[in-house]
C-alpha cells in the first residue's frame, strides 16, 4: 500500500518530462520535414495578406510569402541559433565555472573576475552594440554573439557546485591517488554535474532563441536568413498589427513560447530529480490531507528529509472504518 502514492508520483514526474520532450520533438520534426512539404518560403507569387485558407493554412504576408512555409524555414533558423548559442554558452560556462570552482589561486581569481564582470555588464545592450557594428551577420555570427554573452549566469551556478564537489572525500581520494587535474575534472566531477548541466543547457537554448527573436525584431538579426524573429520584424515592418493580419505575427511568437515552455517542463522534471524536496514535500502534504479527509487525526507531518518519512503518512486508506484513530507520524 505504501508504494502507491510514490508510484503515481513517479508517473506524474514523468508526465511533465514526456509532454515536454514530445513538444520539442514535434517542433524539431516540423523544422526538419516542414520545409520539404511547404512551398518556397521566399516565393512571392501568392496574393498578399491572404487570411488562413486551404492551400495557405496560415495565410500569406504583405509580400505574398506563405506564412506556414516561412514558419517551417524559420524553425530551422531559430533552432540552429538556439542550439549553437546554447552549446557555446555551456562550454564557456564549463571553462569559467567548473575550472574556476575546482582550481584555486590565480586561475580561480582571474576566471571568476571575468565571470563577474560579464555578469554585471548588461547583456542585451552589449549584444545590440556588437551586432550593430557587424554590418554583415550570418546565422552563425548571431549565434556566436548570443552564446558569447549568455554564459555568466550558469557559470556562477556551476562554480558553486564544483566548489562543493571539490571538497568531497572521493575527489580528495582521487587527488591523493595521483590523478591529474584534467582527469579529475572530466571523470570525477563532470558526471556529477550532468543533470545540472543539462538544465543549464536547455535554459541557455531558450534564452538564445528569445535573444535571437529580440535582436531580429530590432532588425539586428541574421541578414538573408529566415527565423521566427525576422518574421516578427517583417510583420512589424509590414504593419501586420494595424492591418489586422494576426496570422502573420501570432504563430512565430507562439511557437517560441511553446518551445520555451516545453524545454522548461523538461527542466522542471530535472529540477525535481536534483532537489527531492520539491517532490516529497508536496506529496507528504497531499497524503496528510487525504488522511485527514479519511477521518484520521494527524498532528505532525512533513517528511522533509528523505523517503523514510513518506511511508509514515501513507497509512491513509485502509483505516477508514475506525475514524478517530490517532496516527503518530
Amino acid at each position, binding site marked *: 500500500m505504501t508504494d502507491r502514492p510514490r508510484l503515481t508520483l513517479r508517473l506524474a514526474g514523468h508526465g*511533465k518530462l514526456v509532454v515536454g520532450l514530445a513538444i520539442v520533438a514535434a517542433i524539431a520534426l516540423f523544422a526538419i520535414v516542414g520545409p520539404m512539404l511547404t512551398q518556397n518560403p521566399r516565393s512571392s507569387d501568392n496574393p498578399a495578406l491572404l487570411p488562413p485558407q486551404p492551400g495557405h493554412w496560415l495565410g500569406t504576408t504583405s509580400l505574398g510569402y506563405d506564412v506556414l512555409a516561412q514558419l517551417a524555414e524559420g524553425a530551422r533558423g531559430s533552432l540552429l541559433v538556439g542550439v549553437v548559442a546554447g552549446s557555446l554558452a555551456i562550454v564557456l560556462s564549463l571553462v569559467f565555472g567548473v575550472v574556476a570552482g575546482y582550481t584555486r589561486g590565480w586561475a580561480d581569481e582571474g576566471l571568476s*573576475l571575468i565571470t563577474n*564582470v560579464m555578469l*554585471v*555588464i*548588461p547583456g*542585451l*545592450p*552589449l549584444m*545590440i*552594440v556588437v551586432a*550593430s*557594428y*557587424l*554590418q*554583415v551577420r550570418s546565422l552563425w555570427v548571431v549565434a556566436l554573439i548570443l552564446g558569447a554573452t549568455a554564459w555568466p549566469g550558469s557559470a556562477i551556478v556551476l562554480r558553486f557546485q564544483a566548489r562543493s564537489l571539490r571538497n568531497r572525500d572521493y575527489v580528495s581520494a582521487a587527488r591523493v591517488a595521483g590523478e591529474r587535474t584534467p582527469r579529475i575534472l572530466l571523470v570525477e566531477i563532470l558526471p556529477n554535474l550532468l543533470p545540472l548541466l543539462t538544465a543549464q543547457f536547455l535554459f541557455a537554448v*531558450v534564452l538564445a532563441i528569445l535573444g535571437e*527573436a*529580440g535582436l531580429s*525584431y*530590432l*532588425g*539586428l538579426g541574421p541578414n538573408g536568413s529566415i527565423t521566427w524573429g525576422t518574421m*516578427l520584424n517583417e*510583420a*512589424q515592418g509590414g504593419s501586420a*498589427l494595424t492591418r*489586422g493580419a*494576426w496570422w502573420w*505575427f*501570432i504563430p*512565430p*511568437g507562439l511557437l*517560441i*513560447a511553446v*518551445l*520555451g*515552455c516545453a*524545454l*522548461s*517542463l523538461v*527542466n*522542471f522534471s530535472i*529540477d525535481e530529480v536534483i*532537489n527531492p*524536496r*520539491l517532490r*516529497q*514535500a*508536496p506529496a*507528504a*502534504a*497531499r497524503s*496528510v*490531507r487525504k488522511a485527514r479527509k479519511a477521518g484520521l487525526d494527524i498532528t*505532525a507531518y*512533513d*517528511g*522533509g*528529509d528523505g523517503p523514510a518519512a513518506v511511508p509514515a503518512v501513507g497509512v491513509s486508506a485502509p483505516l477508514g472504518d475506525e475514524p478517530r484513530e490517532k496516527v503518530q507520524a
Partner: protein
Amino acid sequence: MRFYIRRVGFYAVTLWIAVSLNFLLPRLLPGDPFSILIAKLQRSGDIPPAVENSIRLLLGATEDQTLWEQYVAYLGNLLRGDLGVSVTKFPAPVSELIAGALPWTVGLVGTATVLSFVLGVGLGAWAGWRRGTWVDSIIPSTTLLQSLPYFWVALLFIYVFSVQLRSFPIIGAYDVFTFDGPEPTWAFAGSVLFHALLPAVTIVVSSVGAWLLGMRNMMVATLSEDYVITAEAKGLHPRRIYLTYAVRNAAIPSVNGFGVALAFVVAGSLVTEQVFSYPGLGKLMIEAVRNNDYALMQGVFLMITLAVLAALFVMDFVHGLIDPRARHHD
C-alpha cells in the same frame, strides 16, 4: 575593510573594462562604421569639422594617432562628461538626450519591476503554503509566462487593446496632441499613467513567473525545515508560522534577486519600449542603432552600464552592512 576594498576594486575594474570595450569594439570588429557614417552624413549636407573629429575619435578612423593616443584622448573626453554629439538629432549632445530619456525608463520599468516582485513573491508564498493541492498543477504553467517573448506579448496587447478595441493608445508616453511637453498638471499625470499601463502590464506578465516559481520552491523547501515542524508542534497559529517562520526565511533569495533586478532596471526592457514607442533609453538606443548614430549608441550603452554598476555597488554595501556573513565570506 578588506571586503569593501575588494568590492570597490571590482567595480572599478568592471567600469574600466566596459569603457574599454566601448573603445575597442568598433576598432576590432570587421567593417568600417566610420566610412558608412560619413557617407550617410554627407548625403544630408556638409559635416562640421568638430563633428567629424568627434566621430573619428569614437570609431577609431584616425590615421595619424597610435591606438594608445586615441585611447587616452577617448578617456579624457569621457572624464569631461563629453559623450560626443548625436548625428541624428544634431547638434544635441548625447548626454542631454540621455538625461531626457532616463526618467521615462526608470519610471516605467522601475514601477513594473516592483509590482512584479510584490505580486510574484506574494503568489509564490501562497502557492508554496498550499503545496500538495490543486495549486501544484498550475505551477508549471508559470513557465509558459517565462518563455513568452516579451515583445511579442506587447505586440499582442497592442493588437487586442489598441487596434481592435481601440481602448488604449498605441505609442508614446503621453498624449502628444494635447500636451506640448511634460507639465505639472493632473491631466498630464493621468495621460502618463494611461500610456504606461500596457507597457507595464507587459513587463509584469513576462517577469512575474520567475519570482513566483522561485518563491514557491523556496517556500516548499523552508516548510519542510525542522524549525517549522517544531513551530507546528508547539501549536503556533498557522498565520504566525506562515508569515514569521516560512515567508520571512523563504523570501531571502528573492529579496537578494530583487536588489539585482532593481539595478538592471535601466537596462530594462529595451525591446518593449521600442514596441510601444516609449521614449526611454531603450528606444533612444535602438533609434541610434537604426540610424548608425554610433556616438549616441555608445553613450547609451555606457550610461546603462554605469547605472547598473552604481546600483549594484550601493546594493553590495548595504548588503555588507546588514549581513556580516557577506563581509566575511569574501
